[in-house]
């Protein structure tokens, strides 16, 4: 990842642990579902997630390689960072829930974002796209606000998107693998 933000590996927020978390129910994916970028609906009933339980189970048939374990760990850290934002009032609780759903729905084959509060109750997720500026996704309440090629002369502002747990293909298309 390039020099951009509080990514999952920096540990910038690592000194704080989220409080008031509730455990998630155990879950399993069918092999077909692992290719859909949708969060498990049973998760939506939880108002707060426990990163430890969420990532304790590998996908069926998934080999626990070093890369898979690293991805698990990075997601866990990312969720803790988001929980910290919520606990400190930097993002709204509805945004926190949506951002957690986004991480849960995020395909494993894609690069995880760097995250930061956007100053307006939302959470900014950012990816550097080699040769194409940056992709910015702001999660605010149940909406996504997406910029492709941010900072570049040919930047594009996607229409406001409602987020219901499914990450739209047009968003996934501009997130690097």
């Amino acid at each position: 990842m390039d020099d951009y933000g509080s990514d999952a590996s920096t540990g910038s927020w690592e000194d704080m642990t989220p409080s008031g978390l509730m455990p998630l129910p155990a879950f399993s994916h069918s092999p077909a579902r692992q290719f859909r970028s949708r969060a498990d609906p049973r998760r939506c009933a939880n108002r707060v997630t426990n990163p430890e339980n969420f990532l304790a189970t590998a996908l069926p048939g998934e080999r626990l390689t070093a890369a898979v374990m690293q991805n698990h760990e990075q997601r866990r850290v990312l969720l803790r960072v988001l929980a910290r934002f919520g606990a400190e009032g930097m993002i709204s609780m509805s945004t926190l829930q949506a951002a957690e759903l986004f991480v849960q729905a995020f395909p494993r084959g894609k690069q995880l974002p760097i995250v930061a509060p956007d100053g307006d109750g939302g959470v900014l997720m950012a990816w550097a796209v080699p040769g194409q500026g940056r992709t910015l996704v702001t999660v605010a309440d149940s909406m996504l606000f997406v910029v492709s090629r941010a900072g570049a002369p040919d930047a594009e502002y996607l229409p406001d998107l409602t987020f219901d747990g499914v990450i739209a293909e047009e968003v996934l298309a501009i997130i690097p693998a």
Partner: protein
Amino acid sequence: MVEDIPPGDDVSRYIDSPHKWSSAERKVIDSTLFEFPRPEEVESVVWRKYAPHLDDVHALGCERQKLKRETKPSWTYEGAITARVAEIRQLKNIAGDGFTVVHAPDEGRYHAHIGLAMAGGDDRIRQRKSDLKERLRGVFSQPDAHVCPL
């Protein structure tokens, strides 16, 4: 007294940890440099007319560290980044939104604000603001690091 800030002047922004600086990676956290939090939607900078040398900026930063640590013990001044006022004011995103740089001496005669100057309309406003902030980061220098004396 509020003064006009000439376009050829520089302004500097404090870099503090843990919010804007990653001690683990020894680098600026770009995403948090400029947030323009509501409701004012401004970010503070030091007008270099009243802090002409970098050491003057660092001295102000260390003063701020002392004040901030009364309520946030981990707040640490790490250095500053600098930009030319003209370059900030000339920035525009594809929707024509930009920035203002104005003197705000209520917090000291060196104090100025960068504000958002939105072109109008609410269509895709959040996207426009994120893109604007992205462009603003690009006109500031690499950080000049500093460690405050104990």
